[in-house]
């Protein structure tokens, strides 16, 4: 008891017995964690396990209800981020917290006391070292999520922190960027910097971590040097004590679809818009069409344009024989397309509204919920259906969605998209930032849809996901479709090559 209360010898950061509750919800129930010099501690755990909360406590954003923090062996009270920063701790948050009206450079250097010129030089060097490209004079509000994440990383790296916390840094990054981040982490490791690395991708744990800790329900259930574990042990550690291992691997036992003579439910003809051009595409009922590509390829723009969020510059979109080109979102929805946006916080969630309102928000223009008055019974019914079907963990239908974990939030957004009984569902990065269990649930949902004969367009930057789920796949490169693959040809190598514009060993001509 006395022993564990103290800092581990030589640790840069030690956490002892930290507890934290949000009103009655006990999130952390006595956490011990050590980060030594040159350690990369991979912290894994399901959505809502309390990982981010712990990190926010270390960063001084939240105050713990109990427990102690030791920085370099000294007991520390971190009352504010300023105090944490002063002790050399920096966190790259899970949700990028940029200053939208500032430029990229201002965003990175704000709060530093060094001369701007010096900072600028260091920043440029850092970017060159990692091979990251970003226009430093762009406004942060124009950045995509991935770019925002890069900015956050640059901030952290430029800080020369002694303890660096990376909260799901790779969830939005491209393959290349992840590679260079890992290189960067290696070099930090060798400089003796301690890193806490939060991720949902187990592969990453084995690639860069020295230690691993698994959090479940507010306690650390498993921890130690990474060499002591293998993948299955981690998966086992993540799952609740008596649960079958069915979740992670969405089973794709279905037979191949026979496309001959099958009319497409949705078709794009020479479709052009901002961020993509001359797209020809067919989606068939009951198939999952994977849309692969690197972040920034223009897939989101393609999807949002179909969905009536942006102007169509040319071509046609046809759903079930009806021309839906350039219709408003409302009409596209009625016609039978729904879209799960990639940025659920910005475009998906009503955080201070309850679960029921979130789930049924897409139905407000339909008679189903009543003609003038809102049919509350019906609303509860529909909500219950999706909560049950998707196993969404809530305390009640009146819980505010802002207080749900990411995975459950995502399921609600998907539930909403399905509530309008669409013929085509476009899922944009549906599993970003959600844990293995939730991911499995989402995969199951996608399969269910397919089996019900709904056409699914799955936009994902996670090639594994495309490989696992798709019946057919296309790749998008610089706003154009540059490859189409039948089920048997879908594999990581093919997709990757096409996504980077390299097909059959040669660069695609522009």
């Amino acid at each position, binding site marked *: 008891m006395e022993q564990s209360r103290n800092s581990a010898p030589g640790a840069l950061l030690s956490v002892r017995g930290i507890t934290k509750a949000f009103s009655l919800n006990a999130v952390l129930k006595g956490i011990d964690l050590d980060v030594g010099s040159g350690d990369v501690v991979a912290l894994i755990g399901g959505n809502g396990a309390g990982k981010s909360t712990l990190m926010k406590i270390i960063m001084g954003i939240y105050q713990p209800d109990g427990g102690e923090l030791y920085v370099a062996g000294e007991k520390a009270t971190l009352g504010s981020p300023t105090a944490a920063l002063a002790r050399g701790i920096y966190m790259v948050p899970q949700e990028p917290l940029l200053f939208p009206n500032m430029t990229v450079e201002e965003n990175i250097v704000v709060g530093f006391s060094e001369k701007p010129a010096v900072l600028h030089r260091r920043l440029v060097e850092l970017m060159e070292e990692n091979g990251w490209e970003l226009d430093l004079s762009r406004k942060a509000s124009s950045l995509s999520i991935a770019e925002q994440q890069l900015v956050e990383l640059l901030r952290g790296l430029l800080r020369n922190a002694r303890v660096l916390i990376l909260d799901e840094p790779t969830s939005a990054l491209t393959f290349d960027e992840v590679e260079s981040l890992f290189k960067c982490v290696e070099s930090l490791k060798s400089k003796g910097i301690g890193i806490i690395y939060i991720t949902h991708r187990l592969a990453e744990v084995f690639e860069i971590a020295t230690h691993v800790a698994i959090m479940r329900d507010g306690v650390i259930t498993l921890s130690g040097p990474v060499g002591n574990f293998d993948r299955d042990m981690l998966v086992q550690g993540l799952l609740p004590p008596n649960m079958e291992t069915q979740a992670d691997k969405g089973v794709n036992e279905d037979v191949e679809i026979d496309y001959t003579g099958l009319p497409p439910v949705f078709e794009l003809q020479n479709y052009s818009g901002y961020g993509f051009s001359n797209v020809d595409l067919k989606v068939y009922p009951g198939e999952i069409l994977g849309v692969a590509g690197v972040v920034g390829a223009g897939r989101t723009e393609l999807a949002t344009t179909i969905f009536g969020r942006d102007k169509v510059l040319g071509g046609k979109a046809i759903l079930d024989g009806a021309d839906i080109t350039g219709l408003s979102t409302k009409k596209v929805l009625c016609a039978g397309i729904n879209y799960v946006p990639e940025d659920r916080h910005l475009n998906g969630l009503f955080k201070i509204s309850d679960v029921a309102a979130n789930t049924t928000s897409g139905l407000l223009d339909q008679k189903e919920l009543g003609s003038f008055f809102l049919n509350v019974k019906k609303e509860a019914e529909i909500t219950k259906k999706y909560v049950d079907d998707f196993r969404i963990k809530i305390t009640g239908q009146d819980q505010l969605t802002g207080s749900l974990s990411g995975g459950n939030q995502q399921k609600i957004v998907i539930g909403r998209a399905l509530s309008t009984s669409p013929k085509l569902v476009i899922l944009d990065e549906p599993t970003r930032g959600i844990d293995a269990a939730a991911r499995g649930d989402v995969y199951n949902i996608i399969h269910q849809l397919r089996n019900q004969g709904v056409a699914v367009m799955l936009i994902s930057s996670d090639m594994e996901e495309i490989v696992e789920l798709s019946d057919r796949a296309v790749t998008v490169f*610089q706003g154009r479709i540059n490859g189409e693959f039948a089920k048997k040809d879908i594999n990581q190598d093919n997709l990757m090559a096409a996504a980077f514009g390299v097909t059959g060993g040669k660069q695609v001509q522009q």
Partner: protein
Amino acid sequence: MNTLKKITKIREINSLFFLIALFAIVGMVNPAFLAPTTLFNCFNDSVVFTLLATGIAFVILTGEIDVSIGATLGLSAAISSSLLRDGASWFVAIAAGLLAGVVVGLINGFGVSTLGIPSLIFTLGTNGVVRGMIYVYTGGAWVENLPASFTKLSQVKLFGNLTIFYLVVLLGVIAAHIALTHTRRGRYFIAVGDNAAGATLVGIPAKRTKILAYVLCGVLASVAGIIYSSRIGFITPTAGNGYEMKAIAACVLGGISLSGGLGSLLGASIGAVIMSSVSRILVFLGFSSDYDNTITGILLITIVVIDALTQNRAATKSRHERLAARTGPAHAKKGGAAK
């Protein structure tokens, strides 16, 4: 070309262009408007609003609002000028007026920042209390017959026709503008308004910055009150009634976003000149005073609508340009090699 584009992106420059265009149009209708005296007086007369607008700009930049500044102006004016009238020393009178501003600012800052109460609600409350205090303090009577030495100050002019008040205030605004844009701590105000959580994360004391913004706002409102006393020479208990809205409008005219984190003090001061010149402009345009409110309204709405539309269009355009650039040279040959 590129620099020109960059310059027009600076919002306060747009406001300045607008001010110049407005004055030019009025000057075309009535050349007397362009007489140096008149032109200078547009600026001289804006001194109270310049102070109020720059004061509230601090608060708006941090993403909050303060609707109590009109009352604060009135209270400071009443306190300072009644002390002066009753023979107190200048130092005491001015210090007392400023103290009132500091106190109101601290209370607002405490309520909004420490207690976390939405700023509109909290400052609505302090507005009522402070406005009532003026009636209590003055008993509802006017404060009149201020010492001539004090009211004469407003007539001291330099460089031809610029009052010393405006000159000092303008220099102050420029200094504060530079401090805000070019110093580390100055950037804090904008950072806090842009993203308070993000600011906290990089070690910016968001709460303290907000309190400071309110105190600065209160102090500037009381400076405005003291200058108001000197300029007007008599203080009614309704002094400054409704000025908060005009000051907010001035900020918006000067390119400050009410959601915080965007804009500059210089913009606020330009907006203040536009806002306070309206009634003068109407006199020169020969409009019947019956049109006063109508034209003020049309002017205000037109400016903000045009500004919003151009900003939105510019944002959309740059986004579209960036997106179009991704698809490579326009209408290149279709697709790539499909498998």
